């Protein structure tokens, strides 16, 4: 008996073992040699069969012409800049040419310090860095006789222009969104927070892809421990390529087995900046416009930046609506099933008769009906994503209604069911962040099963189970459902309700920020105290 169990266990074990990723780096660092030919040969060998590498071998004119070579990847550099500022400044410099003292040994320094008219210039001593820099879009200059290389920053990449973010449109608010280039993204953040306290540390993650990842935080506001934790978790990642921030998200999460996202993502720079100002840490990843923000609490997924730009009463109203619709999206189909199957006494008598009449002739029990319609709706939604944008959204909702109507006429479902499904769909669209809505949409189905088994009791059990699970979650140490629990009155001002700006004097307390005060206290505006001043000096002095 035990041997059988062990055999089964071993079967599982084998399929789970993953071979370690082959390291791309060689064990030791290869240094640049003073011999130019050797260097060039090596580089050509490394970039063998890469047709976009440009090798420009030339001689720097001097008393004795010095051999030099310039490497760059075609398409990643600004060719005009390269030609004008590197090649030209080296090849067309009268003083250099006529100076007697310049020879192979001191050419390097003179070139670097006096001749190159490039804004950003660094040096490197080993081949790997050189190769990496070439691949990053820099131009590398090797001079015969020196064992160092000059790396000039002449990068120019094709990138999408800054445009309205497609996943988070707003009515009121800025309309720029992140793009794929990390430099542009960082700039978008920097423009909004013009403080030297905004730090951005650059990492490279992905052994083959060497993707640039930037960690942003505001020194003095963000908790140091948090920042260090983020950097450490990112540093632990060993994967061959990072193509999107979503990869990183799953690596740095506290609890990977849950439906609930513990890292919030956004396409908007203003959202990122607001979070940074609250003491959170942002992560930008090259080649994707979606940034990550940690730590994340669940109420955040129901918030939209627009809440802060609109006035307080309206913002509170919309937030409360969203809170309610979240519950509708999660519970409405289950409540429908539960009430119709177990708790018919809850319906008013006329409604009961009406629904019973509609359901005459429908062959399926309420549970199957609900599951079928919900699934059809999910199919439609998924299909709608692939359709061209103008049609996609309309197809989702209208399609559901039309199909629903057809199903009713065919006698497959009852009309009340179509109403329920449409309401649920509309409710789930109101959740501003996509990752939040996924959790709710998926949880709908187990709730339906529970409702079909035990009615309202089952729904309640499901909700308690979700609650207990959510209470165990932490995102980088912050309890996931702050500020509901642990309850913090000052944080609640910015949760379901949105109190006016002049009341929100503190930053969220659950992040352990170092400097909690956000604004001057007792800041409420009012009419000027001395009205007489306004009226033109009737104060009778």
């Amino acid at each position, binding site marked *: 008996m035990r041997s059988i169990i062990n055999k089964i266990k071993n079967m599982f074990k084998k399929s789970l073992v993953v071979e370690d990723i082959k390291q791309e780096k060689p064990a030791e660092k290869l240094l640049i040699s003073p011999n130019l030919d050797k260097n060039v040969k090596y580089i050509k060998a490394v970039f063998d069969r890469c047709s976009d590498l440009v090798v420009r071998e030339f001689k720097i004119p001097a008393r004795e012409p010095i051999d030099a070579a310039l490497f760059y990847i075609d398409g990643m550099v600004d060719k005009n800049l390269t030609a004008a500022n590197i090649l030209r400044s080296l090849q067309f410099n009268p003083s250099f040419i006529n100076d007697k003292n310049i020879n192979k040994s001191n050419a390097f320094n003179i070139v670097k310090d006096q001749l190159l008219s490039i804004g950003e210039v660094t040096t490197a001593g080993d081949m790997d860095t050189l190769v990496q820099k070439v691949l990053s879009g820099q131009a590398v200059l090797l001079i015969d006789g020196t064992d160092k290389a000059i790396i000039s920053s002449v990068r120019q990449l094709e990138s999408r222009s800054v445009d309205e973010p497609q996943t988070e449109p707003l009515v009121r608010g800025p309309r720029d969104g992140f793009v794929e280039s990390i430099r542009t993204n960082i700039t978008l953040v920097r423009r909004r927070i013009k403080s030297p306290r905004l730090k951005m540390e650059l990492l490279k993650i992905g052994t083959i892809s060497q993707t640039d990842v930037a960690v942003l935080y505001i020194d003095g506001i963000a908790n140091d421990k948090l920042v260090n934790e983020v950097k450490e978790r990112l540093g632990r990642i060993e994967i061959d390529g990072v193509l999107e921030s979503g990869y990183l998200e799953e690596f740095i999460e506290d609890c990977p087995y849950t439906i609930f996202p513990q890292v919030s993502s956004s396409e908007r720079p203003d959202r990122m900046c607001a979070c940074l100002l609250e003491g959170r840490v942002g992560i930008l990843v090259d080649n994707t416009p979606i940034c990550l923000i940690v730590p994340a609490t669940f109420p955040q997924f129901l918030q939209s930046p627009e809440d802060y730009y609109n006035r307080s009463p309206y913002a509170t109203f919309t937030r409360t609506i969203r809170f309610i619709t979240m519950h509708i999206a999660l519970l409405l189909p289950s409540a429908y099933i539960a009430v119709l199957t177990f708790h018919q006494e809850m319906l008013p008598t006329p409604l009961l008769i009406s629904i019973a009449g509609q359901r005459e002739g429908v062959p399926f029990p309420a549970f199957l009906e609900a599951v079928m319609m919900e699934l059809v709706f999910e199919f439609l939604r998924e299909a709608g994503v692939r359709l061209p944008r103008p049609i996609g959204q309309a197809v989702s909702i209208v399609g559901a209604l039309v199909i629903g109507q057809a199903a009713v006429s065919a006698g497959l479902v009852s009309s009340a069911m179509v109403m329920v499904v449409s309401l649920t769909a509309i409710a789930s669209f109101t959740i501003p962040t996509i990752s939040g809505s996924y959790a709710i949409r998926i949880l709908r189905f187990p709730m339906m099963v529970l409702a079909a*088994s035990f009615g309202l009791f089952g729904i309640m059990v499901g909700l308690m189970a979700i609650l207990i699970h959510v209470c165990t979650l932490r995102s980088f140490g912050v309890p996931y459902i702050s500020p509901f629990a642990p309850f913090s009155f000052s944080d609640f001002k910015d949760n379901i309700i949105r109190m006016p700006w002049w009341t929100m004097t503190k930053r969220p307390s659950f992040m352990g920020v170092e400097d909690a005060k956000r604004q001057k206290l007792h800041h409420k505006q009012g009419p000027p105290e001395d009205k007489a001043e306004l009226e033109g000096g009737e104060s009778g002095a």
Partner: protein
Amino acid sequence: MGRRLIGILIILLFLLFALSGCWSRSEIERLAMTTVLGHDKVTIDGQKKWLVSATVIKPRDLASQGPLGGNGSGGDKPTMLVSGIGATVWEAGRNLATRLPRREYIAHSNIVIIGEDLAREGVDQLIDVLLRSKDIRLNTWVLVSKGPALDVLKIEPELEELLSQEIIGLVQNQHGSSKAFTIDIKRFINQLITPGQDTAASCIEIFERKEGDRGQGEGGSSKENPQKAVRVVGTAVFRKDKLVGFLDDSETKGFLYVTGRAKQGIISLSLHEHAKKDVAFAMTRTSSRIIPKIDDDGVSFIVDIHAEGDLQQHEDTEPVASPEIIKAIEEKAAQEIKALVEKALNKAKKDFGADIFGFGRTLHKRYPQIWKGLEDDWREIYPDIEVTVKAEAKIRRTGMLTDTPKIH
């Protein structure tokens, strides 16, 4: 790994459990919803048996009629009448269920009708059954029918689609005329078990409409027999748990005045000493207090009634827009109220010996020690208790007219 396996196994087990279970599931279209329950006692082969009857809704017919109704698909009755007989109430109920192709569901029964014979015999057993059942709500209306309850259930509703809606409407609408007493199970049973209080119930009776009343019936529903309809008027008076008699409409009005439940209604009176009643006083608010008085002669009660209302009809040619006339009308109205109340009191005390007004209970609340002494003999003392009625009426408004226009 092992732990995870166990966790997954538990979840799978639970899912199986959940999906195969659902013992209490009942699809809505498999339910036979009853809306009116009727209880009777009948004699069969010399033995008394319970007869339980119910009207069951046919949702299909109701739904196809649409929200407006009236364009019926062939005029089929939207309800089905079933009944069952048994030695106990539950057995009768189960026999009733044998007539139904769907599962019986009484949670939406808002009306319980007790037949006259059963009521006269005693309702104690019925109360036990009604309370124990989880489906009967405490705010179900209780009515006693004159005659068997089964006959009431056979009547077709006139305005509403369902008999239950018709009866509920009648019950809830009575406050406009204050001629019928309404009560729900909770208060009914409460009054049954309160010492010093006898209970009363609404009274529902069948009457035949005269030919001229037929009116514009819907196509296809004409019958050979004269139309029968129900109305809710009057009060069924119980002594302990047995029905002893009925109060008619004016006596009921008096009864409602005493208990402060006469919300609106009309007092017709005549200002002058001729029999024609041509002034109508429409009450909008009434309140009453029962004050027990203890003195050397024993216990007596004062019933203090205040009524407020508007003047709604005045046929007399005398101008009415003067405070003196108003005062006179008020006094007449108070006298009228007093007369009604005394009529009701006499009937209940002398003819029935039932303390439906709750004099005993009031005494209990105010003077518990004295009540203790009188409690056992209350039924004997009660018919001779002296009750003084004080009534006061106030006219607040006179409708849209200040004075009756003179006709030349």
